[in-house]
Structure formats: C-alpha cells, structure tokens
C-alpha cells in the first residue's frame, strides 16, 4: 500500500502510527508525508513530490481547527460561504487525484467545541458549527458519491469519545494537534480500517450467531415459546435490535448462519411462531442446531459456503463456546460478548471487518438466496450419475462481455472481495477498470452465469492490455468461488482466445502471483493449456492461432440474450 497523507495540521505522529499499522497486512507499505502545509500546491503541481511518490491512496486530512482558522479569517459577512470554499478545494483536488488513478479519502469533521449562542447556534447558518456541518454534508452528498472516494468518519469517532475528551486545544495552540495527543492512535485506527477494507483485507463475509440468550433472551428448550423474550420492552428489545442489526448486514451481502446447541425443531420454533422475531429461517444460509461442537459446525459451514474461516464472525453469549471456537479455529473472529445484551450492536460496531467501501449492490441483496440455490445444486449433484451428467443437467448459460457502467461497481466489488481465485491480486478500482474499457489497447470484461436454478450474476472479472509484441496480457482475473467446478474457467479461456483474436494478438499471456490465499489458482494456466514462458516460472502463454476451444457445458449467450 502506497499511502500519501496531505494534512492541514501536525501529522507526524499520525503517519508513524499509520506506517506501523499497515505493516502487519502490507509489509512493504510506504507512507508519504507532505513537507508542505499547502495541500493545493502538492495536488495541483504535476511535478510535485506527491506524484513522483505514485500514491495508491491519498488521504486529505483536514481538521476542524483549520476550517475554524479560515472561518475567523473571513470577513464576517462572508463567513456563511466558508464551507463552500473548502468544498470547492476538495472537489478540485479530488478530481485531479482520481484522474491520476489514486483513491481519495476525506475526513468527515468533528463538530467544533465552541458554540456561541447555545443550542440555537446550529440554527444560524453562518456560525462555525453550521459551516462544519454543511461541509460534512457536501462531502457526503457531492464528493463521496464518486467511485474511488472514501470517507474517514472522524466526526463519529470524536462524538463517540465525547468532544470534551476529543479536543485539547493546548496542543492545537502549541503544535497543531487536531485532537488530544493520546487519541491520535484511535484517529489512525479509524483510517486503517478504511484502508484495510478498501484493499479487501479482513472483510467479514459471514456472521454465525448462537440462539439462546443471544438472538433471544432465555433458553427455548427449557423456557418454551412463552418463556423466551424477544421484542417488547426491556431485554427482549435488546435482542430484537440485534436481529434488526443482523438483517441490515444481510442486506449488505453478509451471510448469516445459525449455530446452536439445540434440538432442530425447538430451535426453529421461535422463527415460526414468535411474533417478536425479526429474522426468519430463510434469512440464514445455514441453520445448524445439533449437539456437535460449534467449531465442527462452523468448519462445515465454511466448506459448504466456500468462504474462508477468516471471514467468519462468531457471536455467542457462552464463554465456553467462544473459547472452544477460538482454540479450534483461530482464524475465526470471536468478539467478547458484552456484559449486557443491550450492547451487542455496539460490540459488532467495533469490528473493523464490517467496514464497507462499496454501496450495497443488487448482488448483495441476493447473496443469501444464491447460497440457498447452491444447496439445491449440491443436492442435484449428489443425485447425478456422473459429473458430466450433472454439468449437462444444469443447463448453464454464460456471457463474457465488456464491463459497462451497469457492471462497474459490482466488478470492482468482486475484485475487492476475491482472495482465493485471484491470479495477481491487483485490486483495480473502478477508475482503472473504466480506463481499460475506454482504451484501444486494453479490455475489462465480466463473466456472468445462469443455470436452471437461477442467476449467479456477475461471477468473474478479467482485465488485460495488449503490448507492442502482439501479446495480450491478462493483468487481472478474479472469480467467485461459488462457481468453481462448473467449467467456467474453460469457458472464460475460450472467450479470452476470441478476445485476443479480435484484438489481432498472437499470444495470450497470464501470470500467477502467489499470496497467502490464492494457492487454488497456482496451476490454472497450465490446466487451461498455457505453457511456461522463458525463465519466469510465474508466467504462462498460449498461442492464439493454434488454440482449440476447450470443452465446456456452458452455452454462450450474446449480450442481447442475457437481458431477456
């Protein structure tokens, strides 16, 4: 990760902590700190040190105090327009940085400590608190709506700590610290969570929840339907709010699973009969109620859903169960359960893995349903006499087509989320994908797949560029693990050959760059008929003119058919 930090205040300590915080997951990270206070100078000069650094992400780190300085420097009658001037700067800088292909991260600013007229201050548009609020609103509604722009919500951080704690103006006066020096660590952590998520690291993809005293108050097996509490007032409200929280996560594409030590019928009863329940059985991709160890059950879920254990969170009120899972499956995130169920949502809020960097997509909304369809396919596979028989019976139809504006966001999201089937782990963003689509020498394609059970949606992204030697380089290839073993790789390879031909290329070249997680695709290119090139063991090539299509059971759709 190459991170540039452009601040309007002292940021040495912040940068040191960022450097240290990036190291565990990105050891060769470099943090660039601008030597100038003048962010404009750094961003607008194409020859500045910033651009020779070539940042992947640029953090524009404004402070409430610097906005305050601008506010007081303005003529009293011009103070109502201060936020607009800051917004204009941010818009200009953001546009330039996005153009250069860097992600941009902006602060949402904490409310200032001073309020001249008590509560009424907020009702006066040209007061400082109103200006800061208007600035935040403009960042959210006018700037962060662009792909590639993210926010670091320092406003929420400061508010949750408390403004009196947050500010220590002595250190602003002395050395331009935007907050109490001991809170710079929390400041850095907030940004690190955004950076980690934007690099697709440590994302939570599945929440496994216990039932008794977790999803509801009481023990269904002992207390019965009338004895448990969910909804209404008191503790039942707390558990119901946890269910609402989980439902929001599900709508964002996070898979929910039940893992309970119970008789299956008893465990399902509240979902069917209790009026206070928010979640239904159909909200869960796996519903496991048995007497086996929870680690065993979670391991089975991971295999069934094809999701890595390190993307699992396990929520359980029992210290015994939490310890059992931690000991057996150290990759699983097992947060401490709060002393009071009213705080379950606060506990989940604190998990950095829930940080999102893309807006919920249609794909996210359907994700649970897709896993459920997958179960039907697995069922069919078990009943089929042979693999070929199964694949034929699926009646698969596939499409490989250039990424258009409709697919852009989902394509970027798949690139962020894919760790296992990911050949080069380049984490291209929307701007880079768009640029490839528009270039004559490059391409960015997606592959979508459907079968008799339903639509898998967009399940692979491929990017490439043609070099001067009539070689088409595959610079990015990611695929969802949900469609492994269907012959999609072969199907894509055949389409790639067509793409290479249409771009007048003689060769297709691919590369495998190993990470901790992508061993699955180590032998992919050889399996698809590519051969090693020269002395680089990671590179493979295929002669386009002699390449015969590989057999698949996927029928190719034209883009027109796909919309029918």
């Amino acid at each position: 990760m190459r991170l540039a930090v452009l601040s309007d205040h002292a940021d040495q300590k912040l940068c040191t902590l960022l450097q240290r915080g990036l190291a565990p997951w990105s050891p060769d990270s470099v943090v660039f700190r601008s030597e100038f206070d003048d962010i404009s100078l750094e961003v607008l000069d194409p020859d500045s040190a910033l651009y020779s650094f070539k940042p992947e992400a640029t953090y524009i780190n404004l402070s409430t105090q610097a906005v305050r300085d601008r506010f007081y420097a303005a003529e009293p009658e011009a103070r109502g327009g201060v936020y607009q001037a800051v917004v204009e700067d941010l818009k200009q800088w953001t546009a330039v940085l996005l153009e250069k292909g860097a992600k941009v991260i902006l602060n949402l600013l904490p409310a200032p400590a001073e309020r001249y007229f008590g509560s009424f201050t907020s009702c006066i548009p040209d007061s400082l608190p109103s200006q800061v609020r208007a600035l935040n609103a403009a960042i959210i509604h006018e700037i962060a709506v662009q792909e590639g722009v993210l926010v670091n919500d320092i406003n929420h951080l400061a508010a949750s700590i408390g403004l009196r704690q947050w500010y220590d103006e002595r250190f602003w006066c002395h050395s331009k610290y935007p907050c109490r020096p001991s809170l710079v660590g929390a400041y850095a952590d907030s940004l690190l969570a955004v950076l980690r998520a934007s690099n697709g690291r440590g994302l939570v993809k599945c929440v496994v929840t216990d039932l008794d005293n977790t999803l509801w108050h009481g023990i269904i097996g002992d207390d019965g339907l009338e004895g448990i509490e969910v909804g209404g007032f008191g503790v039942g409200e707390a558990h119901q709010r946890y269910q609402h929280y989980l439902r929001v996560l599900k709508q964002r594409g996070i898979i929910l699973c039940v893992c309970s030590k119970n008789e299956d019928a008893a465990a399902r009863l509240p979902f069917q009969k209790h009026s206070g329940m928010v979640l239904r059985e159909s909200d869960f991709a796996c519903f496991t109620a048995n007497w086996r160890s929870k680690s065993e059950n979670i391991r089975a879920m991971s295999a069934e859903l094809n999701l890595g254990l390190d993307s699992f969170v396990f929520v359980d009120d029992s210290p015994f169960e939490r310890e059992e899972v931690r000991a057996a499956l150290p990759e699983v995130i097992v947060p401490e359960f709060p002393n009071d169920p009213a705080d379950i949502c606060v506990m989940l809020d604190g998990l950095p893995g829930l940080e999102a960097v893309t807006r919920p997509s249609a794909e996210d909304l359907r994700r649970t349903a897709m896993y459920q369809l997958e179960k039907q396919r697995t069922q069919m596979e078990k009943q089929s006499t042979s693999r070929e028989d199964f694949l034929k019976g699926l009646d698969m139809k596939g499409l490989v087509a250039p990424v258009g504006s409709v697919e852009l966001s989902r394509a970027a999201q798949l690139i962020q989320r894919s760790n296992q089937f990911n050949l080069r782990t380049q984490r291209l963003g929307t701007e880079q994908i768009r640029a490839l689509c528009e270039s004559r020498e490059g391409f960015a394609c997606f592959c979508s797949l459907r079968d008799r059970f339903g639509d898998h949606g967009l399940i692979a992204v491929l990017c490439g560029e043609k070099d001067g030697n009539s070689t088409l380089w595959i610079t990015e290839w990611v695929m969802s693990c949900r469609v492994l073993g269907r012959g999609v790789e072969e199907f894509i390879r055949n389409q790639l050959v067509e793409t290479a031909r249409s771009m007048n290329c003689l060769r297709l070249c691919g590369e495998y760059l190993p990470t901790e997680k992508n061993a699955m695709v180590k032998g992919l290119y050889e399996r698809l008929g590519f051969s090693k090139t020269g002395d680089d063991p990671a590179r493979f090539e295929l002669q386009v003119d002699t390449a015969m299509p590989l057999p698949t059971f996927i029928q190719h759709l034209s883009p027109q058919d796909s919309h029918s």
Partner: protein
Amino acid sequence: MTREDIRSSLKDVFRETFDGREIELADELTAKQVDGWNSVTHIDLICAIEEKFSFAFSTAEIARLQNVGELISVVEKKMKA
C-alpha cells in the same frame, strides 16, 4: 517532593518514551542533545508527565520548557500548588 525525587520519576517517563533508553537528566540537558527528542516525542513526553504526576501544563508552560532544569521547576511548582 524534592527536585531529585522529581528527577528520578522523570527518568522513568523518559525511559518509557524513548524505548527503554537510560537518559541522564542533568538540568542543562536540552532536546537537541537527545537523540529522538523531537517535536513529536516532546508532546508524548508532556502527556506522559501529565499522566504520571496528575496535573496539566498550561499552554504557556508547554511553550516555555527549554531544558530539563526548567521542566523540573515547573513540575515542582505544580506539585506544591
């Protein structure tokens, strides 16, 4: 608390701030003479001293501290108040 008591407590604070290094805190010692005593660690030091002795420096005091002797004098005055 005598000046020497304060000096000895400050030595602990310096050791923690400067990664376990032992620094002799003579009155004349200034930041320039200590490797790693820069504007960032200076603030860290001030915060650690405030925590250790449970008082707050004033903004003017933070700016005025020129050497260890003055630091000890300020702490001495604060502890008496």
